[in-house]
């Protein structure tokens, strides 16, 4: 059978098995094993478990559960609410400051916790009721939180980036740094939109008040004294110090990325124990259980995705597909657009971990041949996968919002996030015009 036929069969079999609802990890593993049995030497089946173990037993990959532990520790404490309250107080004098405070809180929390849904949940629980109480439309409030949460996989340390660095064989340290500029760009775009939208809704509220005397919470102002603002800082500062400390340890040459994961987890646990008195087994148990659940689910998908990619490579499917794409002689930007489109469609159904590991062997060689910087592309790919977190049909963050604010209709949430999806497209466009936003920082910091 030709490589093309085997490749097509492999792709179709994967789609069919996955759409039966079989867990992604087992589906990928089953398809790989069946193709090993039919198309590879019989001895290869004897080494299947060794393959999975050897691919997984990398301390870089296995640092993922420790990053999840750090995120769960911070996510299950009151840090999110405190961070939000402090930013809200400090931004209260700025027009649209509440929206900006929510975006900033999401970005800072995401950088500390490294998880999009955890960010949505932690900041949204305080932020959505507050915004609605102040007159923000429900869809707008939900959109800010859903989109703000996605910054979790762009700002370091990002689990998605750890996998991309393994799949693309690029420096994890550089990749983490490359995410900072685009992350800040998105924060700026989201905040600017929040201010604009605030002005529109505020103007409408003023007009309604002038015309019919309809009072809106938009027109109320809360003033915080300097003393109140300063009093909020002590609870937030340690977490900001943790964030900065971990980055200094990583880039100051004190710790490897995996050591940073362990160190970050230990520091986060110490901080929640000292600040929120969360040190009893009953406090720690939900954190540890959530970490194990998430880690096990993810690591099994990663292990089986690696086996799946190994089979694809052994059967020359990935190499042939990559050569075929190169052979199409598409223009550079058409190639990039087509690949990002593919990633986006896959994002409708698959979690980012599977998308990266399954597609990297096929899409990265043509991109490299076209002269694209793979670190820069990693950032673009991450932003596209972020979109998958907020748009239907899967849109995990949408479900988180529905969980914390069940009275907001799904339709409002979906329409509320759409402007943010458009802003993400705009960010991709800006990054294509000015790639330095991503590549400048790693070049300056790591010579």
């Amino acid at each position: 059978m030709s490589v093309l036929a085997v490749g097509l069969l492999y792709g179709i079999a994967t789609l069919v098995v996955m759409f039966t609802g079989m867990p992604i990890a087992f589906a990928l593993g089953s398809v790989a094993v069946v193709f090993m049995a039919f198309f590879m030497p019989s001895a290869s089946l004897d080494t299947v478990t060794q393959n999975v173990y050897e691919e997984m037993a990398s301390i870089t990959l296995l640092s993922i559960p420790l990053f999840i532990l750090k995120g769960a520790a911070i996510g299950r404490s009151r840090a999110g609410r405190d961070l939000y309250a402090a930013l809200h107080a400090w931004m209260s004098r700025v027009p649209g400051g509440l929206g900006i405070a929510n975006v900033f809180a999401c970005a800072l929390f995401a950088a500390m916790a490294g998880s999009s849904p955890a960010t949505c949940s932690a900041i949204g629980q305080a932020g959505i009721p507050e915004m609605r109480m102040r007159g923000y439309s429900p869809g707008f409030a939900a959109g800010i939180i859903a989109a703000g949460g996605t910054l979790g996989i762009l700002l370091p340390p990002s689990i998605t980036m750890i996998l991309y660095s393994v799949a693309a064989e690029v420096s994890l340290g550089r990749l983490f740094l490359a995410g900072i500029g685009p992350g800040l760009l998105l924060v700026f775009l989201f905040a600017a939109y929040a201010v604009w939208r605030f002005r529109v809704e505020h103007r409408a509220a003023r007009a309604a008040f002038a015309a019919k005397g309809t009072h809106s919470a938009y027109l109320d102002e809360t003033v915080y004294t300097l003393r109140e603002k300063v009093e909020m800082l002590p609870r937030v500062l340690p977490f900001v110090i943790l964030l900065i400390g971990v980055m200094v340890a990583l880039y100051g040459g004190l710790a490897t990325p995996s050591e940073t994961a362990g160190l970050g987890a230990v520091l986060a646990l110490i901080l929640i124990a000292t600040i929120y008195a969360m040190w009893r087994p009953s406090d720690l148990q939900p954190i540890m259980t959530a970490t194990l659940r998430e880690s096990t689910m993810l690591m099994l998908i990663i292990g089986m995705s690696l086996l799946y990619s190994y089979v694809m490579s052994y059967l020359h499917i990935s190499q042939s597909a990559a050569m075929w794409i190169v052979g199409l002689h598409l223009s550079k930007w058409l190639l990039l657009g087509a690949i990002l489109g593919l990633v986006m469609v896959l994002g409708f159904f698959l979690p980012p971990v599977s998308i990266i590991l399954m597609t990297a062997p096929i899409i990265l060689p043509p991109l490299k041949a076209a002269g694209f910087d793979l670190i820069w592309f990693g950032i673009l790919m991450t932003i596209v996968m972020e979109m998958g977190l907020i748009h239907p049909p899967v849109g995990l963050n949408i479900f988180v919002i529905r969980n914390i604010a069940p009275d907001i209709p799904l339709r409002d949430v979906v329409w509320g996030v759409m402007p943010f999806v458009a802003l993400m497209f705009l960010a991709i466009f800006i990054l294509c015009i000015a790639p330095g936003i991503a590549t400048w920082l790693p070049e300056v910091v790591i010579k």
Partner: protein
Amino acid sequence: MTHRAEAGLEPEGGPRIAGGPLAPLARAVEFLNAWIVRAGALALLAASAILTYSVVSRYFFKAAIDWQDEAAVFCIVGAVFASSAYVQSYRGHIGIELLAAFLSPRANRVRQVVVDIASFAFCAFFAWKSWTLWHEAYVDKQITNSTWGPPLWIPYALMAFGISLLALQVALQVVAGLQRRRGP
């Protein structure tokens, strides 16, 4: 990244074994899973502590240690594989549930049983190959390539045990699904 657990979006566990000769086995697996979660939590804490110790000892005592990465890998691999049955017990291994939306409840129950049987076949195969890998490593006294060189049968045993328990958990879910089909 899909942090469903942190976000409080746990999937439903599905039917449980109601009675019969397999009920005690189902309870035993549930009991074992509860203890594995505690051990797994300790293993993750140990891995974090080991990596932190590595940074501290290098920075403050200028002492490089060569075992921290492998020790952490063993702890995390053990925690992940051993907990896989627990995660399956509440169907936490995510899949694409698109088809479920288009099928009738009856057809969905049949689909779930078929999917579980296929999952069991894969897990049982993987468990079998894990035990042969463990046996080989144990008999040949295989060690890792590092200067520390711990025996490889340790992580292989954890992998084999975890996947075997996972296969057993899926098998129990198959039985529970079949019992439900036969039921009212």
